[in-house]
């Protein structure tokens, strides 16, 4: 599929969660959820916008913890039935996934991947972030899903608490034969604090090492690096199939929607743009000045603006905002 035709929605359709991770960007874990008819109203706005724009949607359903919600499967089925949505992912902590869900998951034709958060390659590191016992449960879920032939990816959020453990994490991913891994930087928002983030030099060393390691990993394991900063490791790459470096689609072909309908440019860029239920998606997408500012690279300030790698990077606007208060500032974790 032509990727210029794709739009990404990350939909946090509930806030409720069974864990309380130390870095979590959420400020609330409210148990109440939107009524199902309101979820459908949101889904219809997404589908309607895709039709209007002649685009196709990739949706990640997440929370909170999506498997804690009775609405998960009805919503999956509804989205699955739309010819405008071509791919659905579920982003989960994995701890509530049991064999009872397998049959229902199998019914979802467009389910592309289930992403499980793993913030360490062993129980002590992962549990230091996510709480005692959460590693074993996540591992059970990974094995159950792999045995049941689902595509599984792992998400490692890099922070001070687990920076020593990314190699164990990669080894774990190889051993468990998962399909993809994403290693992303913690954003200091919500429960995430400025002291949790790594220095630019630490990020340089870890990203460079990961690209070197990735050269020797089995080709069945995708190390996702089509994201800001990774381009600066491209000279270490020897794998012609690795897709290294990418300009973030924020403001262009991506949006995040929260449990109450609030729309953010990206889940980590915590600037509310409006509410999809009251303002409508078109009004938010067309009118909001913040989105128009982000869309124009000329508004960047600092070293990103004149960077030779701009087209393949652009820095992370969420990190810039969370640290400096200006979402057009340079990425504070860039080492070049």
């Amino acid at each position, binding site marked *: 599929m032509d990727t210029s035709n794709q739009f990404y929605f990350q939909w946090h359709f509930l806030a409720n969660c069974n864990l309380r991770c130390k870095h979590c960007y959420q400020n609330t874990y409210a148990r109440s959820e939107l009524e199902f008819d309101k979820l459908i109203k949101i889904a219809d706005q997404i589908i309607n916008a895709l039709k209007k724009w002649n685009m196709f949607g990739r949706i990640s359903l997440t929370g909170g913890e999506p498997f804690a919600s009775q609405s998960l499967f009805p919503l999956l089925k509804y989205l699955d039935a739309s010819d405008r949505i071509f791919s659905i992912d579920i982003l989960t902590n994995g701890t509530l996934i049991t064999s009872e869900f397998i049959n229902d998951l199998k019914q979802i034709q467009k389910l592309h991947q289930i992403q499980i958060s793993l913030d360490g390659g062993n129980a002590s590191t992962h549990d230091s972030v996510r709480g005692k016992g959460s590693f074993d449960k996540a591992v059970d879920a990974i094995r159950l899903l792999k045995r049941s032939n689902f595509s599984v990816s792992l998400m490692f959020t890099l922070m001070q608490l687990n920076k020593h453990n990314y190699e164990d994490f990669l080894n774990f991913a190889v051993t468990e034969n998962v399909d993809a891994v994403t290693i992303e930087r913690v954003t200091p928002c919500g429960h995430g604090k400025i002291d949790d983030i790594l220095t630019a030099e630490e990020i340089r060393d870890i990203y460079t090492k990961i690209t070197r390691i990735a050269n020797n990993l089995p080709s069945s394991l995708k190390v996702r690096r089509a994201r800001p900063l990774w381009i600066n490791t491209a000279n270490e790459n020897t794998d012609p199939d690795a897709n290294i470096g990418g300009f973030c689609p924020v403001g262009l072909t991506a949006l995040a929607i929260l449990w109450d309908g609030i729309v953010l440019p990206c889940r980590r860029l915590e600037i509310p743009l409006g509410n999809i239920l009251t303002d409508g998606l078109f009004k938010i997408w*067309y009118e909001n000045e913040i989105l*128009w500012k982000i869309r124009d690279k000329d508004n960047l300030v600092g070293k990103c603006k004149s960077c030779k790698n701009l087209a393949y990077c652009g820095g992370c606007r969420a990190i810039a905002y969370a640290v400096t208060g200006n979402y057009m500032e340079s990425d504070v974790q860039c080492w070049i």
Partner: protein
Amino acid sequence: MLDLNDVYVLNDNFILRSIHDKFWCLDTNSGDQYRLNRVAYDILSELHPNQPISVEISNVSSKYKIAKDVFERDAIELLSSAIKSNIIRKEV
């Protein structure tokens, strides 16, 4: 036929936006998008509740090196099609 002494404004659900040399008129209700050229964008941007379109057309035309009568004809054509598409409305 459009009367140049009339006042026209953008309907409330429409907004104009631009980045560099790209210009749009966007319908925040229906999601319709109209790609504009710079001149059309300038003309629609000039619409103002206390100014007849003759003033707007002459303001914008002074920015471009186009014969006044040619410019006026094109501007009227643009505004007429904007009325048809419900993008602008007459202020009474």
